[in-house]
């Protein structure tokens, strides 16, 4: 899976994702829902979305307090996890995956895909959290800067994106997409123009420390 690092960030395709988990322990917990929306450059494709709820693969209760908005949708739960994951992989293709504080979600996704389907998720991944803070540091131009806003909603509000109280993964993916949409012109202004640059500053592994 090779991505052209010289491609303009305004020309790349992105799959903006948000994943809800039943808990944070990989051995015990699993993915509860996947929401995704496509972006062509800075353009959010409103009809190109993906949203599936999954039955938990573990013993944890559905109404896990860390997963708001899941319980009421329990009727729609998908019993079979593998087809949902395959479908997600096929719509993602080779596009760049993009999420907010995405590293844990990504670890679960990679793990489950490997376990249930037997393939590797090799898509490049970027994290809007990393980009946001890179931009903030950049705009503070060397002045002392401490990251304050962390959560998606905080970052979104900071950038003028309307947030909703309904945090299902579809809504959050959409908000993440809008956050990225607003970050994009800032990136360009800051000189980040190619996918290669974007992947470097948006690398999720630089995550929360």
């Amino acid at each position, binding site marked *: 899976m090779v991505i052209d690092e010289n491609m303009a960030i305004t020309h790349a395709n992105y799959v903006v994702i948000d994943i809800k988990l039943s808990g944070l322990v990989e051995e015990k917990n699993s993915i509860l829902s996947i929401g995704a929306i496509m972006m*062509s450059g*800075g353009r*959010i494709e*409103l*009809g190109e979305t993906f949203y599936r709820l999954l039955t938990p693969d573990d013993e944890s209760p559905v109404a896990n307090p860390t997963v708001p908005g899941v319980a009421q949708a329990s009727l729609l739960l998908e019993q079979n996890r593998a087809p949902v994951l395959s479908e997600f992989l096929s719509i993602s293709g080779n596009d760049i995956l993009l999420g907010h504080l995405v590293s844990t979600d990504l670890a679960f996704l990679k793990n489950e895909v490997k376990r249930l389907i037997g393939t590797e998720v090799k898509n490049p991944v970027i994290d809007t959290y990393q980009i946001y803070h890179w931009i903030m540091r950049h705009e503070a131009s060397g002045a002392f800067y401490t990251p304050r806003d962390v959560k998606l909603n905080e970052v979104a509000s900071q950038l*003028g994106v309307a947030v*909703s109280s309904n945090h299902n993964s579809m809504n959050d993916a959409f908000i993440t997409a809008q956050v990225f949409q*607003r970050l*994009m*012109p800032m990136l360009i202004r800051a000189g980040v123009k190619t996918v290669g640059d974007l992947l470097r500053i948006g690398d999720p592994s630089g995550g929360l420390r």
Partner: protein
Amino acid sequence: MIIEDVVAFLKYVPPFQFLDEPALYHLAVGMSMEFFPKGTTILRQGGPASRYLYVIKKGGVKVFRRSAGGEDTIIEFRGQGDLFGYLSLFGGDKSRAYVVTVEDATCYTIKRETVRHLLDSNNAVREFFLKSFLNIYIDKTFQEMHGRSLFFSGCGDRLLFSTAVGEVVNKVVLTAPQKMTIREAAVLMCDNKISSLILADDEDKPVGIITDRDMRGKVVAKGRDVNDPVSSIMSYPLMRIDARDYCFEAVLKMIKYNVHHLIVVSDGALAGIVTNHDLMLLQGTSPLLVAKDIESQQDIEGLAALSKQIYNVIGILLKQGARASNITRIVSEISDRLVRKILEIAERRFARPPLQYCWVVFGSEGRKEQAFKTDQDNAIIFADPITTYESDEAKKYFSVFAAFVRDSLVQCGYPFCPDAHMASNPRWCRSLSEWKKFFSDWVAAPATELGEAGVNSLIFLDFRAVGGEFSLADQLRDLLTVILRGRSEFIGHIAGLVARNKPPIGFLKSVMIEKSGEHKDKLNLKVKGLAPLVGIVRLFSLEAAIRETSTLERLDALKARNDDVAEYGEEIAHAFEFIMLLRLQHHMEQLSRGQELDNLISPDSLTNLQKKTIKEAFNLISRLQESISERYKPLKRVLTCRED
């Protein structure tokens, strides 16, 4: 959730509000969403055409054009729920204006094919866009066009779009402390002969304003104690505008905040005040200037030189995107003045006329629908002579007089009428009684009196006074109204003529199908497009005894009196405007290529939207003709019986 929100938004946005829920869902899933920070140039004038129709979800944009000289003319500000990009989406290969965000903006974008599909499948949507195409953009410039002073010579261009507020600002502005009593303020205003006073706080910062209106409305009318502090009657907040802003923006601000005064600030300091009166003066300058230019001419040569510039005026108006009817109205205004000036020169030359007379024009001039100079169509109505001697003298005088006017008009670029429909022709120079008899005879026997020339004679019904004693023409119009009442044969005869000129619908079918290729057939915009519409509206006006002569004014007057017009009035007006505009553009193009002007347009030169609009116009004409035929069927039978 995402799509539902989009649908909920679109439900309040025209023209999407005309779509049903499933159609809206279908539309929404094909849409994208884009974000543009403040200051982003989304479309660039002369740059590539828009690929999308943009619907502003949040924020605002400024639409403006930049002249060759680099001067920007703001066309419009658009905000939430407004659209942009549709003109270049269909109207050609490049963008016609700049669209720049004035604040952060989020837009929904709709692909061209989707919009095209909507146009094809939904009448309401199509109508909306056609109207927009004809109006929204094209309309803008008219208001100030009308008041524009660049008609002749280059006397300044004091117009809303290019005049900075600083240039019209009223610099005589007084500031007084807000603690002052009402009486003291009034005295101050009287002493300085000013109609408004700015009030400042202790730190000398402007906080409000009082005007004559406040004195009248809040003090005198309310019986307020004049020893109250003036701050109790002041208007605030004080709206500000920068001296460098265009007057147009001042007008917008006044309308938006419903105020009549704006404080003008220059580099942060108070520079004066601008009132709605100042801005109205600005708009009204030009007719005076135009008049002055014509008035100041002393001879025909001077007028002839001046009249050449009418073409330039049309060119400028067209380029600026004025509406066809507005162009022709302005041109008619100018032509009328020109004619009056010629009459004045003629009267000076041949001594005063022995009898009062009225110079009337008919045909397109009579309907104020002339743009590029067409053949002269004019006549003289002179007051009834008492004696034969008087009558002979009058005929002698007016024949020389009319010949001079005719030749002067030719010099000014208005060619002879090949059918000699001119006042210099004794047939078109008669006393009021003779004219009355002429009309009475014609109305009594419509088919015989003028024979085959009947169709052409109808343009005579569009007569309008331009110079001399207008009441003579009024009396003739009065008579016409009276004799037409109950004369259904005459109206029926005209109805027959009107219904006869069928639009070439079949011809257009091939136009719609064939994308390119050679068309030997060309469309005669005047004969097949304008004439039928003019004829239909004229017929309706005669029926309803309406005195107006211009097609659009007639339509307006007919709204309440004619069922067809009540239903299709707007469509008729749009079709008419559209075809007129096409014709004007066609003429302008021919003129620039040095060709003879004709009314023949090649379908290949039309965009799809234009073809579509013409087709709609033809369908409309057919529909109206059918309605007319239906209505006059019984009358025709009566007519036939009589002839038998």
